[in-house]
């Protein structure tokens, strides 16, 4: 709404950047883009998929008090074919990981992933366990990380709003376009096999590489 109001207000000042953007894409495309991302961001349907403790808070977020329906995400689909959003809500164990990745592969694009809670992000408190995956982002790309153990339902809603913000920033063409609008990017992730001691392979190097730790002072 505010964007539209800004655009229609009389003293229109276009920055050079916007001018360049307009020149490249045209008014039609940018309006279409706005419409597209508006539509996408306000109808994010999550997959009805709970793993552990955080799933209870996810259910709580969909109940009367927090009411995720206010953001257009109350339609928890039981089938991955009808879902846009995978909320990884809980500990992903190594035994469960192939199934989670398969579910991700079965979701149609555009699809998003929220890692809800410490366990989904990094393994959390169960990180040092032999059967716990140290973060679902070892295998599938994650859009939003919500730390907390478990995050409050409001925190999940905040994460969802962040995701909507991210979707609203998408371009429909060009090099910054999201994965599903481009031909050169793979949408599916390889599913690991159960090995004798661990998953094979233990991570997907296309999605995940651990940075080296540099303990410099950040502002």
């Amino acid at each position: 709404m505010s964007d539209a109001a800004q655009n229609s207000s009389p003293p229109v000042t276009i920055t050079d950047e916007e001018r360049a953007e307009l020149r490249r894409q045209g008014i039609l495309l940018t309006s279409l883009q706005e419409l597209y991302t508006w539509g996408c961001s306000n109808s994010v349907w999550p997959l009805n998929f709970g793993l552990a403790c955080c799933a209870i808070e996810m259910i709580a977020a969909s109940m009367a008090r927090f009411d995720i329906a206010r953001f257009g995400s109350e339609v928890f689909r039981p089938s991955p074919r009808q879902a846009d959003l995978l909320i990884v809500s809980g500990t992903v164990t190594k035994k469960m990981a192939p199934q989670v990745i398969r579910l991700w592969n079965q979701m149609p694009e555009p699809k998003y992933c929220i890692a809800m809670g410490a366990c989904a992000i990094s393994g959390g408190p169960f990180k040092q366990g032999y059967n716990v995956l140290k973060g679902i982002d070892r295998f599938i790309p994650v859009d939003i990380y919500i730390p907390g153990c478990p995050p409050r339902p409001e925190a999940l809603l905040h994460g969802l709003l962040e995701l909507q913000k991210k979707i609203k920033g998408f371009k429909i063409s060009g090099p910054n376009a999201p994965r599903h609008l481009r031909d050169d990017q793979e949408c599916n992730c390889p599913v690991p096999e159960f090995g004798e001691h661990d998953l094979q392979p233990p991570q997907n190097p296309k999605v995940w590489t651990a940075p080296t730790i540099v303990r410099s002072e950040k502002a």
Partner: protein
Amino acid sequence: METAEQIRDRLLARFPGAEISVVTNPGAAAQHSLLLGHAHARAIAEFLRDDAPLKLDQCSNVTGIDWPEKKIVETTKVTVPDPAGGPAKVVEQKSERVQPGYLEVVYHLYSIAFRHGPVILRLRTGNRTDQVTVPSLTPVWRACEFQEREVFDLYGVKFEGHPDLRRILMWDTFKDHPMRKDYVEPDDYEWEPTPHGAVLEKAKAHYPTPPAAAIAPAAAPTPATGGAKS
């Protein structure tokens, strides 16, 4: 309820020649247990279940414990007579022996009918590698079914007579027994920003230098006494 000793004596009277001994628990709980030999274990379990004064009809908890081989240094004081004829000296002699390791299965039995318990049974394997079989008590108490499977999965104890002995928590192709004390986890310590202790040791393999030394100097705002590190 009878004490562990009384139960043992009654069992010995009923099953002459059975290996039954009381394992005392030195802790505050004082829940003593009965260590059973393999030969009579199932018969004894059935007896305990059906015995009129005990009637331990509920097997509440089944668990494994791993006791790896342990080196025990024993110091014994020996009096050595002084060859010079003086008073005898007390000399400490150290002897080292290896206590063989074993796996132990513990059963906690209660009686719902008489509301007493626990009577604790223990079964031990011969060692931790090849003699890891104990008799299964699942035919006596159905409650042991999944729990014995769990002990098999996590400790590698084989239960003889179990109807469906498969891995229960880990996947079928998994090879290790992760609850054993000497289990080595798969190495996935690529990102350990806050390591210490055992985790630091494992994370070190993934960093060219130990993380502690790789730290960029902290540009600490200088406190009153000048705390800036070089």
